[in-house]
């Protein structure tokens, strides 16, 4: 009874039926590669998990170099379920980045970026940058030895960028060195700046998906099966994917709780065999490929420039790939996409094994 009155109250004021009709007209194409459609939803789900667990953790974390480490230890040992939610946040981050990379490579290979979806590609690419930066800043907040050294290396590496390197490094560090100032900054990035940016970008991204509909790969244009209604068919499948992901996430968090090393000491020697988080390994390995000096120039600067150009090319892919935009196959860009994928995977694996 009360339910009906509430519904009447709303329907008298808003055209709910129009929304419902809109939902009913949303169809999702069905073909061989339709599984790639679930990668975006999965990333979105993991983002929601990160937002929720992050809000919880923010209630207890102390962003100060003297207390940060202790507050994490307290979260892990003293708070009720603290270890669980920190582990969820830790593993959620890993899975979110993994699923975003899968989403990225799937759309790169299927050329979902082609006209008219260039802006979707651009917003998605910005999200990758934001997410990687999320990972970097979040990793630093635990203020243990590895995180400290890793951030010094990472911000120092950003300092090797041509032209903008020095100001970027100073901006990230909040000074010439990694200190409390850096922690304050990274905390601000992690809990305020990046979440705001990602809300806007994700909102735009999802809105654009609604405007354009799902992209059908060129090869599947004439081989589609009957399109499925988004609601309930695809939505239920999305739900299943999310539930399975939640199960895996919780299992990981329970079985492998997030670890923390020894407290950072700016004066202590760097720990042996430091490795960045796995999603930086391919960059790290690329840096190792370059010698210290090439023809009298700083090898690091050249390495960082080459990497930046590679990333820039991927970013501008939809604007270079004219053939696929015109509906013709463009094998050159398929090879480029395969190259990116193979390079990423191989370099990550090599980084792991080293």
């Amino acid at each position, binding site marked *: *009874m009360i339910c*009906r009155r509430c519904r009447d109250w709303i329907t008298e004021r808003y055209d709910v039926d129009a929304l419902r009709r809109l939902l*009913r007209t949303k169809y999702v194409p069905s073909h061989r590669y339709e599984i790639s459609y679930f990668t975006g939803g999965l990333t979105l789900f993991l983002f929601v998990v990160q937002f929720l667990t992050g809000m919880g953790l923010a209630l207890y974390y102390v962003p100060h170099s003297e207390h940060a480490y202790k507050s994490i*230890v307290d979260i*892990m*040992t003293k708070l009720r379920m603290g*270890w669980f939610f920190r582990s969820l946040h830790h593993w959620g981050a890993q899975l979110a980045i993994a699923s975003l990379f899968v989403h990225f490579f799937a759309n790169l290979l299927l050329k979902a970026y082609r006209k008219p979806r260039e802006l979707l590609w651009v917003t998605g690419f910005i999200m990758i940058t934001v997410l990687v930066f999320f990972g970097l800043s979040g990793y630093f907040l635990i203020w243990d030895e590895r995180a400290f050294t890793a951030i010094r290396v990472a911000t120092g590496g950003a300092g090797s960028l041509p032209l903008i390197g020095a100001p970027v490094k100073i901006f990230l560090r909040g000074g010439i060195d990694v200190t409390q100032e850096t922690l304050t900054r990274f905390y601000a990035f992690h809990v305020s700046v990046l979440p705001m940016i990602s809300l806007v970008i994700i909102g735009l991204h999802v809105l654009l998906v609604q405007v354009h509909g799902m992209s059908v790969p060129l090869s599947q244009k004439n081989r589609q099966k009957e399109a499925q*209604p988004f609601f*309930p*068919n695809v939505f*239920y*499948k999305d*739900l*299943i994917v999310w*539930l*399975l992901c*939640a*199960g895996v996430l*919780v*299992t990981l968090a*329970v*079985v*492998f*709780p*997030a*670890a*923390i*090393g020894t407290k950072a000491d700016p004066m202590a020697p760097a720990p042996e065999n430091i490795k960045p988080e796995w999603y930086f390994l391919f960059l790290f390995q690329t840096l190792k490929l370059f010698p210290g000096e090439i023809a009298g120039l700083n090898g690091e600067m050249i390495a960082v420039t080459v990497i930046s150009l590679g990333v820039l090319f991927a970013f501008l892919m939809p604007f270079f790939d004219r053939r696929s935009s015109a509906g013709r196959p463009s094998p050159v860009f398929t090879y480029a996409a395969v190259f990116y994928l193979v390079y990423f995977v191989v370099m990550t694996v090599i980084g792991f094994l080293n």
Partner: protein
Amino acid sequence: MMCIFSAACILLLALPLLCPAGQAPFEPALSPYDRHILYQALVLFWIGIIGLIVIIVMKLKEAKRTQGMGVHQDEENAPFLD
């Protein structure tokens, strides 16, 4: 469905074996009893997840069946019982 269920079970059985000892220095000191409770809770959680998935699959089949009959929505003006 059986397939997913058995996969989940195998996963559950295999994961604790994979867990290296002393992985997390600040894992709360768990007594064997606590650990038992923890894994029990995890199993219950999975049962909950799998139950939900089963229900969703049933709903999906139902939706497909009605769509196959050409009925895409419940009748709008069906009389209420109240």
